[in-house]
């Protein structure tokens, strides 16, 4: 089912630019996020997924630099080009339309402000009245699955899981239509991780949120996502429905990722990590970026870059050896 899109990325490229070198962290990425669905974005650390996440709120500050591409938003009816919004309009768009749960969420809260003040301030700056904001705090904390007692606490008085829930409460405060969740469960223990995942799922079901769920853990994403995009060395190498990606992967990298999941059923089978390291992105890559680590790589893989091509309905892969 091809859903109605709410956001669309076209040819996004982001580089880290220093005096000495340029690192292409995100290279020509295009995909769309469907309304009310969860899109999982999977890749190893350093593949550019957090950098890509920053584009949704145009949080691109030096040393990172937008090299090209466009980001269209459809949440307010008409098509809007977010990357060309004027500063005041961008400010209004941020958090009101698209909110985010950050990867470093342990440190995402201002250490010298109480929890409630960090919820209230963003609401006031997005045109809620003070009383309205004040009254919403309890409801938001409850929605995020945390006691309303924490509203008058400082971040250092909270555990990691509690901080993450506060972050979710803040993210929901302005009733956004899209939520970017960048590794929302890293550094949390498995039980809390599971609770957070369930929470996000129920938010999607109840509020109709569109969620981009970013993680290095493909098994986790497989549980929650409707669609999955696989990112490698700054590019999307495979994208498709979650069931297709999990059960019928086409790209050799996805296959390798999936085979590195420890499985409960055949515990006797040895789990193998992917040998080698991703390529450094400060120079041009010729051919397929995964070729050096791929068992099936041929001369063609090393000289000519495979492009994303349709392999199935709503399933694209950039590999010469589909399946």
């Amino acid at each position, binding site marked *: 089912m091809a859903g109605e899109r709410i956001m669309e990325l076209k040819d996004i490229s982001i580089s880290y630019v220093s005096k000495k070198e340029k690192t292409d962290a995100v290279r020509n990425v295009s995909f769309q996020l469907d309304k009310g669905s969860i899109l999982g974005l999977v890749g190893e650390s350093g593949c550019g997924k957090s950098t890509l996440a920053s584009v949704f*709120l145009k*949080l691109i*500050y030096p040393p990172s630099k937008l090299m090209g591409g466009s980001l269209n938003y459809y949440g307010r009816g008409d098509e809007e080009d977010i990357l060309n919004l004027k500063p005041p309009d*961008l*400010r*209004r*768009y*941020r*958090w*009101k339309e698209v*909110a*985010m749960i*950050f990867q*470093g*969420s*342990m*440190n*995402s*809260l*201002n*250490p*010298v*402000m109480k929890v409630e003040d960090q919820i209230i*301030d*963003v609401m006031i*700056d*997005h045109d809620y009245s003070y009383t309205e904001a004040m009254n919403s705090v309890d409801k938001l904390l409850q929605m995020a699955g945390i006691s309303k007692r924490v509203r008058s606490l*400082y971040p*250092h008085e909270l555990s990691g899981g509690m901080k993450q829930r506060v972050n979710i409460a*803040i993210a929901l405060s302005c009733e956004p239509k899209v939520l970017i969740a960048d590794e929302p469960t890293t550094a949390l223990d498995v039980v809390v991780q599971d609770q957070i995942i369930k929470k996000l799922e129920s938010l999607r079901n109840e509020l109709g949120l569109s969620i981009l769920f970013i993680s290095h853990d493909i098994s986790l994403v497989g549980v929650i996502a409707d669609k999955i995009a696989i990112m490698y060395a700054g590019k999307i190498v495979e994208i498709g429905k979650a069931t297709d990606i999990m059960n019928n992967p086409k790209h050799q990298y996805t296959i390798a990722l999936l085979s590195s999941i420890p499985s409960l059923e055949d515990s006797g089978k040895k789990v193998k990590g992917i040998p080698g390291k991703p390529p450094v992105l400060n120079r041009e890559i010729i051919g397929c970026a995964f070729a050096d680590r791929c068992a099936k790589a041929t001369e063609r893989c090393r000289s000519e870059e495979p492009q994303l091509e349709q392999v199935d309905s709503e399933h694209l892969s950039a590999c010469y050896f589909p399946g």
Partner: protein
Amino acid sequence: MLTLRYVRRRVLYLVLTLFVAISINFFLPRLIPGNPAITVLLTRYGNHITPQELRLVESQLNLSGTLWQQYVGYMVALFHGNLGVSFYFYPASVSSIIAGALPWTLFLLGSATVISVILGVSIASFIGWRLGGKTDSMVSTISISLQSLPVFWLGLILQIVFGLMVVINGVGLFPVAHAFSTNVTVGPNLAFIASVLYHSAIPILTLVLISFPGFALLMRNTISTIINEDYVMMARAKGLKTWRLKKMYINKNARLPVATSVALAFGNIVGGAFLIEEVFSYKGIGWYLYTAVTTSDFPLIDGIFLVITITVVIANFIVDLLYSFLDPRVMLE
């Protein structure tokens, strides 16, 4: 927000530091071979001093008896606020001299510190938003240059500039000596207060010029790291109004190291104030210390050292307590 444990630890430090300062005062003259204070008295009165008189002096200075007896005598005197008698300003007692001079020094110190902190923080919040730009590098360069100057040297320069070069009707624009002019009556009257403020302008300006760059640079550098903190990135993402982002997320955090540094900087500003008092013949305890040093007035030197140490340590203590209101995390350590 103050926990008893925190206050108790601070008090312990206070007492410990005072104990060390007192010990320095007690042991220093007694460890140096040929107690210099006695030597000074002997040379001053030549050989006319009788053994009885010498004993009297020794008991005055708590130098008779065993070390333990001396220590007890010294502590008893100290608790009675008795710091001995000045050699040079004889028969004035050291405590009366200090009591008269300390308010002047505290005035210089207090105003200079407060103005420096406010100025430093304001300048840093201004350039913190323009890091890496022309204003930033200009302000940073000026700050570093000012900070590198010896305070008394700058004092002399300003004395020449405002006292001798910028002259109106044969009189310098600002007075560059003494704490107030001789033609006003000392007391709570307008003419006296005006005279005091007028006279303190250049000494305070000198101290501020030397002291504010430290605060400004510290806060600027803190901002430059805070700007990359996750919570600032999140604040940007939240689409907060710019003033709120700056005030509540950046400045509120960036001023914390400044608050910590005030206590330490205060000790340095004391040194500056002492030297400045010498330059401007400003009769605070720095000027008296200078006079005591040049006249080998050891009781006065000892007394001033003790009193200024107590002052700084108490100031530190107060700053530490106030700090806990700025940073909610401080009780955790």
